């Protein structure tokens, strides 16, 4: 906490708090990307106040109710319907609203510039914002406003202990990795709010009625002289890739059965295409089960306790062997190296050959598979010469 006191101090008795509230698609609504991929469809969709903004407003109201501020002003920037969002804010208890009319949606920097010019007009002692909006999840505006104004900022507030009446600063707890960080900021300042800061109040019916007569000032971008030119352009908005739905297994037996029957088919693709992660990646996780089984089985048969096979090492070994095999294949030294690695290490584990005897239904498929691949190998060999020839001709 720095204690420079050069700027004229904010009088807490008459302090104004500015709260930015954003109108977003309601959190419970399933969103849909527009067919032309320019954004999310907001036509005929339930809209409400961004939950983080609700928390910001609630905190501002509590500060006012505790006697540390005189007025809470809610601001919203956007189309005419933002007035509804402001009315909700007024019904919660804000004293007045400012609606900055804008028909296109802006990126954080533009919003920050607008808020800066508003702050220049309104002279608030505190600006509260939600840490991010649930529509674009940018988490930038608060920081940008603070930077543009040259004010201190406290982001992700999980507790705001108000303001010392004499020294005029606020202490803010923020949730950081591994604990809480307590900041102390001089006023005026920008605070962005996290989810656990408070539980926003309901707008009651009598308050909604009273809110109808509270003033909402309309402003335009021209009034605020803000340059809305943006250096960022949204190229495309698409839906995330569809994930295969998971399956809930009812017993360990079913899990093992699924692992035997369904998992190994895709296992091969897993370690070719997925990273190792800290634990060896998803492939290794699946492999671990089988490796352990194989290990236990071998140990019991050999009367020797094998040292535990580290999954990560095993999968690294496998993948690097594949890579080496691939290199060998490319430089045409030993063609079969690649497949040999597959046969000798991977296949027996995949087919649980160490756990299965000839009577088991997984036993014969393994040998059939082996036979099939060796057959394909033969065919491939006979064509190899021809392919290589044609490749040379292309050169």
């Amino acid at each position, binding site marked *: 906490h720095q204690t420079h006191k050069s700027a004229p101090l904010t009088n807490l008795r008459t302090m104004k708090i500015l709260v930015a509230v954003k109108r977003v698609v*309601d959190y419970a609504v399933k969103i849909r990307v527009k067919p032309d991929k320019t954004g999310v469809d907001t036509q*005929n*969709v*339930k809209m409400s106040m961004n939950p983080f903004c609700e928390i910001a407003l609630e905190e501002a109201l509590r500060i006012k109710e505790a006697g540390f501020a005189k007025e809470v002003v809610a601001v919203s920037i956007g189309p005419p319907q933002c007035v509804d969002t402001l009315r909700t804010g007024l019904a919660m208890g804000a004293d007045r609203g400012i609606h900055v009319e804008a028909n296109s949606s802006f990126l954080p920097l533009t919003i920050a510039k607008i808020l800066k010019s508003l702050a220049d007009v309104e002279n608030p002692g505190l600006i509260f914002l939600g840490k991010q909006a649930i529509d674009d999840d940018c988490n930038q505006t608060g920081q940008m406003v603070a930077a543009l104004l040259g004010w201190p900022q406290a982001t992700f507030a999980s507790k705001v202990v108000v303001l010392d009446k004499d020294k005029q600063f606020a202490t803010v707890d923020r949730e950081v990795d591994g604990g809480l960080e307590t900041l102390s900021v001089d006023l005026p300042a920008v605070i962005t709010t996290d989810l656990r800061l408070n*539980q926003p109040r309901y707008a009651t*019916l009598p308050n909604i009625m009273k809110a109808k007569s509270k003033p909402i000032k309309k402003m335009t971008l021209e009034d605020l002289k803000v340059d809305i030119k943006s250096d960022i352009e949204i190229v495309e908005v698409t839906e995330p890739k569809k994930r295969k739905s998971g399956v809930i297994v009812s017993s360990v037996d079913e899990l093992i059965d699924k692992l035997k029957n369904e998992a190994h088919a895709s296992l091969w693709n897993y370690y070719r295409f997925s990273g190792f992660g800290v634990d060896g990646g998803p492939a290794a996780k699946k492999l671990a089960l089988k490796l352990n089984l194989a290990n236990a089985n071998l140990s019991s048969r050999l009367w020797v306790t094998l040292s535990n096979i580290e999954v990560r090492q095993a999968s690294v070994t496998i993948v690097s062997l594949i890579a080496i095999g691939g290199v060998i294949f490319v430089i045409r030294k030993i063609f079969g190296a690649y497949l040999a690695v597959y046969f000798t290490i991977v296949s027996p584990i995949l087919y649980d050959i160490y756990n299965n005897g000839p009577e088991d239904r997984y036993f014969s498929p393994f040998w059939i598979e082996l036979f099939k691949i060796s057959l394909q190998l033969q065919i491939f060999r006979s064509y190899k010469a021809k392919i290589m020839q044609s490749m040379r001709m292309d050169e």
Partner: protein
Amino acid sequence: MKKMKALFRSSSSSSLSFTIMHRFLLKLSSSTNPLRNSKNQLHLILPRFLSSTTASESPPPPRTSHPSNRFISRSGYPYSADSFRKSRPFSSNSRALGVRCISSEAGRESIEYDVLIIGAGPAGLSAAIRLKQLCQEKNADLSVCVVEKGAEVGGHVISGNVFEPLALDELLPHWRQEQAPIEVAASSDKFWFLTKNRAISLPSPFDNKGNYVISLSQLVRWLGGKAEELGIEIYPGFSASEVLYDASDKVVGIATKDMGISKDGSKKETFQPGVDIKGRVTLFAEGCRGSLSEKIIKKYKLREEVNAQHQTYALGIKEVWEIDESKHNPGEVVHTLGWPLDPKTYGGSFLYHMNDRQVALGLVVALNYKNPFLNPYEEFQKLKHHPAIKRILEGGTVLQYGARTLNEGGFQSIPYPVFPGGAIIGCSAGFLNVPKIKGTHTAMKSGMLAAEAAFGALHEGLNMNTYWDTLRGSWVWKELYSARNYRPAFEYGLIPGLAVSAMEHYVLKGKVPFTLKHGKADHEATDLARKWKPIEYPKPDGVLSFDVPTSLYRSNTNHDHDQPSHLRLKDPKIPEKVNLPEYGAPESRYCPARVYEYVEDEEGKPKLQINAQNCLHCKACDIKDPKQNIEWTVPEGGGGPAYSVM
């Protein structure tokens, strides 16, 4: 009192047993002597009804018990509803008109209006708009308030819908110039009989010329805007959880539900008590099986009043799809009968082509089905795999999912819609025309007529009962009367039903001198599980058919999880003692949101788990539960689905 009741009963039972005749008799009786005189005498016997004044002057009702206990209607209510009906008109000079006052008593706030309307749907908003229009015409000022449990106006509105603009033409004649979301004229009527693999075209019994394919949710949003322009106060996000009565048992308004009560019943940090909203006239427009309307119908014995039968219901499950441009034919209307439902189960599907490559697809299943293993949701999934339907849907995506029950009782089931202090309008009373499968126009009209009666009562010293009289003189009545025998005919199965319907439609046109009666009430119709074999439904493929959680996600339904369940069991033991062993747990199947699930408890015994957050507010459980043990009450305001294109 007893004497009068006896007179009333004997006159009805001795003369004619058919409902319609009885109604004519009532009409006669209301305008001529003997019965009416006896009612006037009644006022002398019960002078306190004469002296009871308007809501604003009467003392507040005693609020002794906790709100959650007050939903139980008082039994043994001694007076016939008839005794209230002809009570004195509302005095219009008791206080300044159009002035709303907010008062606070014992921590609870109370707000007063001239007219209070519960439910911002087609009926409620039509009533509100009509009231304000009358105010403008007659230079009066009445305050009108509409409360709506949905988070937004239109958010809980779901319907087919092929819209007949008759009532809207009367209400807002210039709607065509006012950007109403009524754009796609119905262009063709197709009627298919489905077998497992084929669709056989039948001559269409529907005539949708001049009608429009719309989303009712969007039309209601538009109506809401019109209402607000007229100065009507609409408050979405507030659910009416109980009826307020005055000392003379007249309805004086409603109380909104307390907000911020946790699952265990304790008050949360955000607790906000509900508010009493009072109306000199209260109109209930809650839609099919309204939770408060049902209480009022019971309390004032409104069905018995006019010898109406019980209401019968159907469950409609609907999806809106966005399909390939090449398969989309705006205005095309398709109805089907037959597969996947068995011939003993009444129901059918609809497929309407709307704007913007959207089609509405739905399945309606009458809730008097017998087989407890029937699963309407799964039947709907099956329907989408029928070759004739699959062809249209393939390559498309689902935009929204929803479900709602609808009234099928029609003419035979209309209760007396007026009670002391207000009236019941729209589907809460039940004006759906079954053979047309349309109820929006009749609901709107009933709202308008009730509004006119309310205006008369408040402004001109007339009586709310004029609503009943004008209703019977209106086209709503004619329509429902001539349609009265279609649905009950299907009680005998699909083929006899079709035969009677065809006769009615092409030859008799409702002129037969008899009225068929409805069969058993829906909850009594369910057979014991041992009479039936469980039905094996195919697994959803994730392309045309989906599991319930996926569908629920598309309904946007949501409730604050930390609140007491709004689905109450009158006896918490019945599910495990009766429903599961005897009926095979039908609630786990008819609920289109899988709210009811039997899970194992700590001892491995099956136990009913109620996932109230999933609820789509369709009310099927309130209707179909074999022992009528489940009561649907309103959750915290704002909870429930968020429909926008339904």
